[in-house]
């Protein structure tokens, strides 16, 4: 009976997840501009994105992105063009290559080390107990 209840819960959850993730409607142009602007820094601010900032410089970047979206460029093409114009620091995400890649790799390594440490501790405890 309990097994059945669990099975039912899993099936319902799976169906809901499938329905909730297969909706592949293409984003509208405005949504794409929003999405790209959120990953780009407002040139006049420190950490605020071009989407969130009210500064005129941010409005310029948004207009530039909108122009390129209308011209049919891809997200990456647009970001590359912005980097060419403003430099690497325009992107709110650090580059994946070079020293900048460390910021992506280090946390993963730290987490793996942490989990490995805990796993090792449990192994030792088991050996001691035996």
């Amino acid at each position: 009976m309990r097994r059945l209840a669990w099975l039912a819960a899993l099936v319902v959850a799976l169906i809901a997840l499938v329905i909730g993730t297969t909706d592949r409607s293409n984003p509208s142009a405005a949504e794409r501009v929003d999405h790209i602007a959120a990953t780009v820094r407002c040139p006049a601010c420190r950490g605020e994105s071009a989407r969130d900032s009210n500064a005129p410089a941010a409005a310029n970047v948004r207009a530039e992105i909108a122009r390129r979206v209308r011209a049919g460029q891809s997200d990456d093409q647009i970001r590359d063009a912005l980097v060419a114009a403003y430099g690497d620091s325009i992107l709110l995400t650090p580059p994946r290559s070079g020293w900048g890649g460390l910021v992506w790799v280090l946390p993963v390594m730290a987490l793996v080390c942490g989990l490995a440490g805990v796993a090792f501790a449990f192994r030792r405890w088991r050996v001691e107990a035996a």
Partner: protein
Amino acid sequence: MNALLGTAGVALGLAACVLGALTLLAASLRHQSRQLRLAEGYALLALAGALLAFLAMEHALVTHDFSLKYVAQNHARATPLLYTIASLWGALEGSILLWSLVLAGYTVAVTRRFRARLTDPLLGWAMLTMFVVGGFFFALMLGPANPFRVLAHPPADGAGPNPLLQNHPLMAIHPPMLYLGYVGFTVPFAFCVAALVTGRVGEGWLESTRRWTLVSWGFLTVGIVLGSWWSYEVLGWGGFWAWDPVENASFLPWLTGTAFIHSVMVQERRGMLRVWNLSLLLATFSLTLFGTFLTRSGVLDSVHSFTESPIGTWLLSAFGVTVAVALGLIAWRGDRLRSPGRIDSPVSREGAFMANNVLFAAFAFVVLLGTVFPLIHEALTNEQITVGRPYFDRMTMPIGIALLFMMAVAPVLPWRKASHGVLRERLLWPAWAGVAALVLAVAVGARGLAPLVAFGLGGLAAGSAVRQVVLAGRAARRSGASVLNAVVGRTNGGMIVHLGVVVVAVAFTAAQSFSAHREVRLAPQQTARVGGHSVTYLGAETIRGAQKTTIKASVRIDGGRVYAPALQQFPNATNAIGTPSVRWGLRSDVYLTLAVAPQRAGGAAVIGVVVEPLASWLWIGGGLMAVGTALALVPGRRRRPTAPVSSPSTPDADLVDA
């Protein structure tokens, strides 16, 4: 006069801390335990000094004493009283003053609470540590952060506070709450140092500081939530958490503190993880120093700017000394810190706490790395890069989801060892709660894997928290006690906190993933539709006052009430400050800003509209966390050894202890 009184207060505080520390050091080294009682007097003197300095500064602010540089820079005659009082913590020097006052208050509170034990060497060393930390902050105020610097030629009027800081009453409570949390962690830190010095590294000091840690954690939580509420109400970008260095600086000690609150239970129960717990406390305390250094030294603008401000060097040195001393002590006591116990199975309460700790540590590491990485990168390559919100969102999302999962499973796990049967039985109803949450989210139109998983796990975690509370309520009723016992005590209060966290997590996910942002240019009486709401611009008016000039737009939402987003021009600022206007709703907020004021009377204005689902639940969840923390402080029902609930045959025995 104010300067004289203030400086006298700071000097008195410093003298009391230095003398207190020296007296306690001498007494501890010579084992003259009666001398340790003197801590009480020195603590009172330090508090008197801090209070005198604090009142002198408030008096100077209220009476417009512009001969003080701090007053001239942060106050103006036209500033309203509330913001005048709050100006004390609006800038660096004043916030150090508030910090010292809070610390002196905690120091006195510790001497009161442990009055009967003051002659205990452990207390002696703890008080000594508190005096040293207090002395450092008083010294800061005589050195690089002197709030009582005098101007030779006082101006007739001051510059006034930063416009952003005189825009919302939350500014008056958010910083004091945050500091009550930050500074409160000094108490467990001091006991941790004392435990290491005296070699009494058992569980006694943990027991003594348990409530202090919880209180500090509660204040820090409230401070962080109020801070993000303030940023939502004032900054006008429609968000509440930007992963800004200032926010990260307050979040880091919260993360390590949260890890500590959980892992400490493993030590209390099994005597294990001693070094780890000491390290977490050390990390929490030193991260408060490091965070203050990051946000107050100007180092974040560029690596090269920090040498310009002496306060940076002071804070960084204090951080370095703290870490070095604490690590040295831990290494010195290494032999005593070994614990004989072992954990039987990873699938157990203690196993879950360990996983929780790895996750929180990883979370803190990501936040710390992301915050300081631009500096490291600039130092290595001389090139500037930005680590912003998309990085933090992407890296913390999987950790957050894993934490939600742990939060669902851990409360139903028994200590020592769990069988799969136990898990299957205890998690069944919570699982259905999770499925219900997931189905509901899909039904109302939520799409995307990460948010849906978060909603589902949120339901699961809420289910297992509610299950615990229900069981505790039943147990209380069976033994004839008040049903209120179901929500008091550490375990049950903690479940209320968990519910608060779930509410915050769900609201955060919904608002981050499903908000709609638009800027619409509207002529008077024109209407636009954003995210299912209609927004009608009615017109704008300009109000000129002594303190500021305000341009107020009138905007009708959904044909109902009229809201008034505004732009405010302060005389001491070049850019106008936006004041958003928010229509609250339990389902979604409609957040309006005046992005561009009309250029001429009757002209068109640009209105920023953000529709943010569930945003108000962030503050409700924060309130629930605060209530839960308070309930956790109430002494829970002691388990009688003969009570039927504690008999080993009852599978839930371990869930009802307080």
